[in-house]
């Protein structure tokens, strides 16, 4: 399994370096570094909108996992932080060095920034964190926004993940649900230990993605 993961990583790297290469086969994904998730699903699907919904802790821990893996795989990622709640002090400096942090105060700015980064296509992973926004603000985002994101993402090799408190991204091709419970003792655990037990359940939408995830 480790060899498969290494080959998948190598494919991802080659695709990054040589974008003009023949089109990717189904199953091409960006590893997350979360062993269980990568084993089951291969990682985050590129060229599609993925939604991760759960409590705010899930979003923060998922972001930390992505940053850790980006430092390991030596790629970059962007975090579009809609509520300006990202705390650099909670992350190691070597992971911060690979993060582009975009602080936004409104959903409109966050969506526009994510759209620009997605169209740019330079970064392999873009996280749009909407978990800190009030549900009322999220409810005002038109549904066609997500379809437009899906359309743009399909033209890129980026993995695009929207972090939400509840399922709101209608066009999401993959939806990840997290239901971990933590207590005060969890705050003293090593993060590696926490990530080891970080359970994510993904479900796919549409025949194409069903094949990919399978």
């Amino acid at each position, binding site marked *: 399994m480790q060899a498969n993961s290494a080959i998948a990583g190598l494919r991802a790297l080659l695709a990054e370096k040589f974008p003009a290469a023949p089109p990717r086969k189904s199953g091409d994904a960006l590893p997350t570094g979360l062993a269980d998730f990568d084993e089951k699903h291969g990682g985050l699907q590129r060229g599609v909108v993925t939604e991760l919904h759960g409590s705010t802790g899930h979003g923060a821990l998922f972001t930390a996992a992505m940053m850790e893996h980006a430092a390991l795989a030596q790629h970059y990622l962007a975090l579009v932080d809609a509520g300006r709640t990202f705390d650099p002090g909670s992350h190691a400096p070597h992971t911060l060095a690979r*993060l582009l942090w975009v602080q936004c105060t409104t959903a409109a700015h966050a969506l526009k920034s994510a759209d620009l980064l997605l169209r740019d296509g330079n970064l392999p992973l873009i996280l749009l964190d909407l978990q800190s926004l009030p549900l009322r603000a999220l409810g005002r985002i038109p549904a066609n926004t997500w379809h437009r994101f899906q359309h743009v993402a399909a033209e890129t090799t980026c993995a695009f993940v929207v972090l939400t408190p509840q399922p709101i991204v209608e066009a999401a091709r993959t939806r990840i649900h997290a239901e971990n419970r933590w207590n005060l003792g969890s705050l003293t655990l090593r993060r590696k230990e926490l990530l080891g037990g970080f359970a994510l359940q993904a479900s796919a939408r549409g025949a194409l993605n069903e094949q990919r995830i399978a």
Partner: protein
Amino acid sequence: MFAVLILPSFRLSAALRWRAELWDAPVALVEKAGAKDIVVACTPAASAAGVRSGQPTPQALARCAELLILPPTPAQERALDAALLEVAFSFSPEVEQTAPGICTVDLRRAGIRDYDAWAKTAADRAHQCAKNVQLGVAENPDLAFLAARNARQILVVKSARDFLTSLAVQELDPPPQLLGILHDWGIHTLGQLTALPRGELADRLGPDSARLWERAAGRTERLLRLSRVPETFAESAEFEYEVESTEPLLFLLRRFLDSLTARLAGLHRVTERMTLELALEGSQRYERDFQVPSPTADPSVLFRILETHLETLRLEQHPVGLRLVLASALPSHDQFQLFENTLRDPNRFGETLARISALVGGGSVGVPVLEDTHRPDRWRLAEPRFHESTKTTAPALPMDGIPLRRFRPGFSANVQIVDHVPAFIVSEKALGAVIKAGGPFRLDGGWWDARDTWTTEEWDVELADGSLWRISRTDTAWQLEGSYDESALPAAKSNIVPFRAV
């Protein structure tokens, strides 16, 4: 062999550089001389109508009623002179800036065998700078100068004697008194002059005549006063009117970039930084530097950077002048690690960042860098340098727990303390009994500076609903600093999108 590049009507060429259509119209460049305005140069159409250099403006207008009067443009003259010098440097590293609009190039070590073919190629390159550049090639600098001055576009002198024989003596700009004497003697061409014995001529007319004879014979030798390769490349334009929209600026910037990058390409250099300067009404100036993420000589890439900036630029005064300066560098060739990912198109990424900065504010985008302090929430945003080979050198420090989501600003809270431990919290975000609390984590610093002394006491608390928070106390005020995990919010049915797993 030496080559000389000459730009005839240099000052007029500079004034009409970005308005080439005016070459076919009657135009005169007028300069103040004492109390009068005097014509210093004019286009062929103006000459045909009787306008001449040295005429006062009213007289010139009397000869040609449609005459367009232009003032000198010193900034454009400097830019054109620099452009000509850069073209000269693309032929040889040994170049003399002889006079405004005149460059002399030493070709002796350039290894050229066919000077006719070379001259055609060189002239094509020089015409990118200005259409009316004349090129002369000859065995010494003075002869090359005469060749350039008498060239239609290109003149390669193979036999100095044949070339000089028929030239008028005035071509050498002799002193007027000497010229008068020579004319009285019936000497009108350089061939007639060199037919006279040099020594006897010098005995009768003095050392000036000996130097004139040497030049007429094409035998003068002199050392060039070598110039240095310019590190910056600039173009500028001055407007006769105030510019009220970005279109004219963008139009000119595109032409500037086409010209500048062609000159850079000739020197095998690329642009690493650009400076845009706008002269505004009322002697105000606007200046902005642009670092090019991946140094390039592609004008389209550079233009997009400027266009993105101008789209969002708001000025209180209208621009009346424009200057663009490119700082050049040698192209870099980075050897990246085998498994290292860098950006595919760093310049496009830079452009995207500029757009996002314009949207959310310049201080809201970047790479977070922690400051060297224990004070909570202290960091700065650094400019992303993702296009550079960045082997991470920071140690991989192990981190604990769930990352905090920090509220900026924090929410004020009322905290009930029982036995020195928080027992109940009331705030806008969190409400409930504390079932477990970790702390206190006391932090302080800045005690050495009375103005910057700080102290705080932090607690991590778990509420009855399972949510985890960080609270802090400064003096007597409590604040909700952030959350580790807020309970999943109750589902608002209207917001939930049905999703069918297949």
